[in-house]
């Protein structure tokens, strides 16, 4: 019996020795917060890289910010092409101003900017250098600006605050004031360049956007513009111009070409893409989405004829043959960038392309929201802003352009038109007309000089210069055009559509968040 007791005791003891772990969760391929903070500045470099990375898909994917800021205007539309592109009506709802708070793109965009705001805020916990902190806060301000512009509400947290609790909210002008104060606070610590990192000139351009749109965020239905704000826009523009860092490129499309990091002289702020390096680089969508299947595309987005017709035939911004490294021979000298219209060709053999069913691939300008005709694959003009990177088609080298010199100049011209005082800076003139004509008559654009200018003309010029650059909705609201009828939306929309609704998920999980008026 004693022996049995001994054995039993031994068993129980052995089980105790082997047992009763504390069950601490150990990461083996990841880090806890304390491990991140523990080892000096190299980690903040990696964290900051993460903040930049968090923005890449938001813009390069061309179905996120692009869908909300371009497809909701006269610039673009994704027609439902018979069996293709219905996608539960999401594209139609955007173009026709019929979205609801459950729209999937609203959720995606809100989450993406929320992610960047989080990553930038989180970095601040880990003792970044002054410049790292400035870059992170700039990227946060940039994301907050977009949330303000699209949703009018900006959620925020302090560094290290739990992500389980509801976040606090800044709305409208309060949010704008915060963004302005942030940019002004960090600008001195920002570097001079290059364009693909947060820099002084990007900060000034963003400040221009803030002051130019200040009246909009105060009252989107009836914005007013103060001379003081407009003069602020002008003086910021002059600082940028006088830096002499930016000038017109030899070819308008150089700014968007695969090697635009080197040759895009107008670019002030970009998202860096390096061929084949960033898995979240979705720049291929800029050509995959509009191109026809026979061209290797998915036959989606198209431009509306009225928008296309705003261009003169000689305007090099409209279409061009722009060869890039590795691009096909193009013996027929066919149009490869800009707006594709009419018969399309095999760029290697110059054979006219045919659809799978044997019809010639001829893009016709007229396009309907729901296509139900035999040529439903072929309606709509197809815009290609970024020249195709043939050597890295899936993960292209083209940097996505956020801010460009031409935008700065056009904003300056607009500020003058809206009551600001004209100043002379650089070679661009001191009146709105002179500035606009300096852009139009630049050999890379080759458009005729305008005789006169007003806000409507300026809006058109912004459309021609900045097509596919995500500013059309922002411009339309500032110019009071957003709600008015345009092609494939033949009615005036309800004013509630001037802001997007907060995605329903966020309303459900954040008690501080109240739905925007009307939704």
């Amino acid at each position: 019996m004693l022996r049995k007791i001994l054995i039993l005791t031994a068993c129980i003891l052995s089980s105790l020795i082997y047992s009763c772990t504390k069950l601490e969760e150990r990461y083996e391929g990841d880090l806890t917060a304390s491990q991140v903070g523990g080892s000096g500045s190299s980690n903040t470099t990696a964290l900051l890289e993460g903040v930049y990375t968090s923005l890449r898909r938001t813009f390069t994917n061309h179905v996120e910010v692009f869908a909300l800021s371009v497809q909701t205007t006269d610039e673009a539309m994704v027609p439902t092409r018979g069996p293709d592109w219905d996608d539960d009506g999401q594209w139609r709802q955007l173009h026709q101003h019929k979205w609801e708070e459950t729209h999937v793109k609203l959720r995606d965009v809100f989450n993406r900017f929320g992610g960047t705001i989080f990553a930038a805020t989180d970095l601040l916990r880990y003792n970044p250098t002054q410049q790292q902190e400035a870059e992170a806060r700039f990227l946060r301000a940039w994301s907050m600006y977009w949330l303000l512009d699209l949703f009018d509400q900006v959620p925020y947290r302090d560094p290290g605050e739990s992500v389980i609790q509801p976040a606090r909210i800044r709305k409208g002008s309060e949010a704008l004031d915060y963004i302005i104060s942030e940019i002004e606070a960090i600008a001195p610590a920002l570097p001079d360049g290059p364009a693909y990192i947060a820099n002084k000139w990007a900060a000034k351009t963003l400040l221009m956007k803030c002051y130019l749109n200040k009246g909009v965020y105060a009252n989107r239905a009836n914005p007013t513009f103060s001379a003081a704000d407009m003069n602020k826009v002008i003086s910021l523009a002059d600082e940028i111009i006088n830096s002499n860092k930016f000038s017109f490129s030899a070819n308008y499309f150089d700014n968007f070409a695969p090697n635009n990091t080197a040759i895009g002289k107008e670019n002030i702020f970009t998202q860096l893409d390096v061929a084949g390096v960033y898995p979240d680089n979705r720049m291929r969508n800029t050509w995959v989405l509009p191109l026809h299947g026979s061209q290797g595309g998915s036959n989606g987005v198209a431009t509306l004829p009225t928008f296309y017709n705003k261009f003169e035939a000689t305007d090099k911004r409209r279409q061009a043959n722009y060869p890039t490294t590795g691009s096909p021979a193009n013996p027929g000298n066919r149009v490869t960038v800009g707006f594709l219209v009419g018969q399309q060709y095999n760029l290697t053999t110059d054979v006219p392309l045919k659809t799978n069913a044997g019809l010639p691939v001829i893009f016709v300008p007229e396009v309907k929201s729901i296509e139900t005709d035999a040529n439903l694959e072929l309606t709509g003009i197809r815009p290609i802003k970024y020249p195709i990177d043939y050597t890295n088609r899936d993960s292209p080298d083209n940097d996505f352009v956020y801010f460009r010199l031409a935008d700065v100049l056009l904003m300056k011209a607009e500020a003058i038109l809206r009551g600001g005082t004209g100043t002379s800076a650089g070679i661009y003139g001191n009146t709105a007309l002179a500035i606009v004509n300096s852009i139009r008559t630049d050999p890379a654009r080759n458009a005729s000089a305008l005789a006169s200018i007003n806000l409507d003309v300026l809006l058109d010029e912004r459309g021609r210069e900045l097509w596919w650059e995500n500013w059309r909705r922002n411009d339309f609201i500032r110019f009071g055009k957003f709600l008015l009828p345009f092609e494939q939306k033949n009615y005036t929309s309800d004013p509630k559509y001037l802001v997007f609704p907060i995605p329903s998920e966020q309303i459900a999980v954040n008690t501080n968040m109240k739905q925007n008026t009307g939704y």
Partner: protein
Amino acid sequence: MQLSIHRQFWKLAQRGLLKTLLIMKLTTAFLLAACLSASAKGLSQEVTLSEKNVSLNQIFKEINRQTGYTFVYTESLLEKGKSITINVRNASIEQVLELCFKDQPLTYTILNKMVVVKEKPSISRPDVAENVAPPGIKITGKITNDISDPLSGASVAEKGTNNIAIAKEDGSFEITVAGEKSILLISYVGYESKEISLGNQTTISIKLNPANQALSDIVVVGYGTAKKKDLTGAVASVSSKDFNKGNYATADQLIQGKMSGVQIINNNGQPGNTTTIKIRGNSAMTGTGQPLFVLDGVPLDGRSLLANTNPLNFINPADIASIDVLKDASATAIYGSRAAYGVVIINTKKGQAGITRIEANVTNGVSTIARKIKVLNAQQYRQAITYYNVSPLSDKGGNADALDAITQTGIQQNYNLAVSGGNETGKYRVSLGILDQDGIVRKTGLKKYSAGLATNFKFLESKKLGLDLNVNGSQSLQDIPYTASAPYGLFFAALQWNPTDSLKKADGSFNIRPSGSNANPLALTELQKENLKTSTILASISPYYKFNNWLEYRLQMSINYSSGIRRTSTNQALVPNLLTGAASIGNSELTTQQITHTLSFNKEISPNITLSALAGYEYMKFKMKGFSMSATGRTSTGGFGNYGLDYTNYIQYSDANGRIITSFVDPLTELQSFFGRTMVNLKEKYLLTATIRADGSSKFGKNNRYGYFPSFSAAWVVSNEKFFKPSFVNSFKIRAGWGKTGNQEFPSGASQAKYSFLNNGVIGQVNNPNPDLKWQSDEQYNVGVDFTILHNRVSATIDYFHKTTTDLLFPSFPVQPSSPGSVVRWINLDGNIINKGVEVAINSALIDHSDFSLELGVNATFLKNTVSNFPTAIQTGRLEGLGVTGALIEIMRNGLPANAFYTRKYLGMDKGTGRPILVDDGTTSYYVGDPNPNMLLGVSSTLRYKKLSLVVNMNGVFGNDIFNSTNLNIINVGGINAGRNIALDIYKAPVKESLFNNVTASSRYIEKGNYLRMSNLTLSYNIGDVAKAFKRANVFVTGQNLFIITKYSGFDPEVNVDRSLNGVPSLGIDYAQYPSARTILIGLNFSL
């Protein structure tokens, strides 16, 4: 001893002590015994009596009820007996009889399952050596069991006489019978009796089959076994002889349709692919909702290492002895936090003491596609071009059947060999298996090699120390259709291929269409590859020590390692504009370690109370890690090229820019548990079970690391009550139980902040930690009855269950701003999913003769599923493909079943416009269908005539809807305008549909999923022993999936394509998956 009884009996008969009446009774009794031994089987060999001053007659009836033993006596004889008082528990029949006959003027002998009562002899017993045999023919022979082991002690009786012989140790016997017309009755406890007409045979070998032991069966429960009669919970058990017959790659398919309450869905027809198992309905809000699998006491991780690979592939079905499914919470709660979706316990075959035996089986067969989706053929396509007035250029002038071209007649071969044997102190079984199964789709298939070793040792003179050791190793190689989406998905391509276009050009090369057109499905089978290789080893060692006959300590340690390698390549010839090609290699490794201590106690603590108890501690560790790389060819040097080699073999040749490499290590997950169980048996009438498990998991937040999972259940064996009268009911038990189980199936690293190393020098937080995360709770009530009637010929189990899932572990929306790219935040969602239902299982031996028998088993399950108290509706069922990006068609919403189809309501086709009419013009979604079945049915039957037997297994699912996404966005009408093929049904529809209709999800694509399948039909012939070498030879022909009765238009209504959204699973969506096979197999089993 039996021999002496026989002789004594013989003597008594000779002396005429038994009256004529008794002899007559004996004759009938023999006949009766022959019938009853089949039906009496299953009853307990133990007796519990508590009687006061009752007659022997009454006692005998009671013993008969409990044990099935028949009593033979004359009325006058019994009148001599005295009334008795007796009080015994779990006593053997011999002990009870000893007590009953003590002080009686009577005595008894036990013969087979008969108790012959007689007067105490007044004369002293004569010398047993005496042998007086009647004159006649001497017959010699041998009695063995179904696996050719000798049955020592079996009785051989000459029918209609008292002439009986008993088999010796080697199974041989000798009996002298009256003549050629004599009939021999052979019987042995636990085996089915046999009647043999002698004819001119003088030497015969006789094989007895084990009796169906439905009620006395030992069933496997958590961390131990129990007698089925002692069970208080709902447990279903299937042993190897009742498994589905045929070649199955995985264990779960062996029991499809065999158990009530258990739905097994083969997600598609690809060999070795995953299954969806739903025990007692659909309650998974996250994760897979798969039950916990326990193999020989080792709880498995259960995760698939590679997509499209079943985690149970590594177990060779030929090595499985039994599969038990624990269904209700009182049975599963001992497994605590991993038991919410039920527990499936698989035990493998073990060695038997005795001669060394080699068992072999060979199965070969062919399979073909069982059902095709109907699309237009070339002739119909030409007519359709005119009918729809589309471009005549769509007629390419050829004639191709793409589905036919990519499918094949698959050959399959399965070889299994097992060697087993041993003695009292060491037993072993070694097995090898090879399965080589071609898919029904070209270039697809499964090869599987498995090996198993099971040993059981006993040490010390006392044999108190023992050691069980099991090792299973396996490697499976799957070639599957590359899992790409449209247009390069193989089945999409085949269904959409223009049937007037040839698949190959005149020169024999593939007709590759220009970019934007259809992919050539035949070219896809050649030029696009996905190979999966999984290697698994599971080793467990379990020493135990029996302190005495009531206390045992056992330790089990196991390690389960698997590695999966996935290689894919896309030949550059497939995509005309991109002459680069692509390749990827990925590897993942999963290691699970377990250590379990159990102390079990089993003792009769008073004559009326038996207590068994178990206490245990378990620690488990789960590790998973892996890496992958993918690359494309380098454009400037002509891509990967056409050297005829697999691109994954020289992936370093790729373009440096396009390489993507990743690696990961999941956080180590630890699970620590303390558990206990107590079972009390009061007077064999009242059974009580209580279990508790405390589980701690490193996955949860500090505040809620431990979860507690109790259960209580009780059973009342009504038929053991004195007042229980109905004679046609042999046993009747009522069970009731309640318990709680949990679920920890969510990603590790959800409760504390996790920063990952991302691409290109990025470190970032990738989760939204919730330190308050706690256990999901599944609470279940169960009430059931078990009964047998008509001399135990019919046994039935009926259960009602009610299961409520609360505190659902749910990937909720993040509260912005939150970590980039992480679209979820794990929370415990307030809300209930309730599953309730009734399960019925009936087994019967309708006819049971030695030459002819018919058994029939039917099980049916009726289910209802409801979602309630959710704070907000949750959507899932994310469709994919042209025209449906972003479309969600399933919802978890209060008042609806889980995964309810929620989309536009379709009213019909407008005759004028050919456009679908949708309620509210399609702007509103409605509840339009339920993917959950409301009834499951399984039927199995065995018909045997002499050596020939026919086994039929059918299963059916009723009341569920399927969303046919294939019809919605692969073969819709618009395809013909784009030069693709369309569904034949659309062309034949009375209303001509407009070519330009949007692809919009609506109830138009919801179809009834009802089906009844002839899952397998086996005709086998039992050759028996051939020459001296081959024993138990058996040949058979099996048809798997011979036919299916359904109105569903897809390949197979048994389908479940994963269209989950953020981890919330979908159910009942079809999207042109690998079609199912119909298989014909022939096979041979034998042993040496």
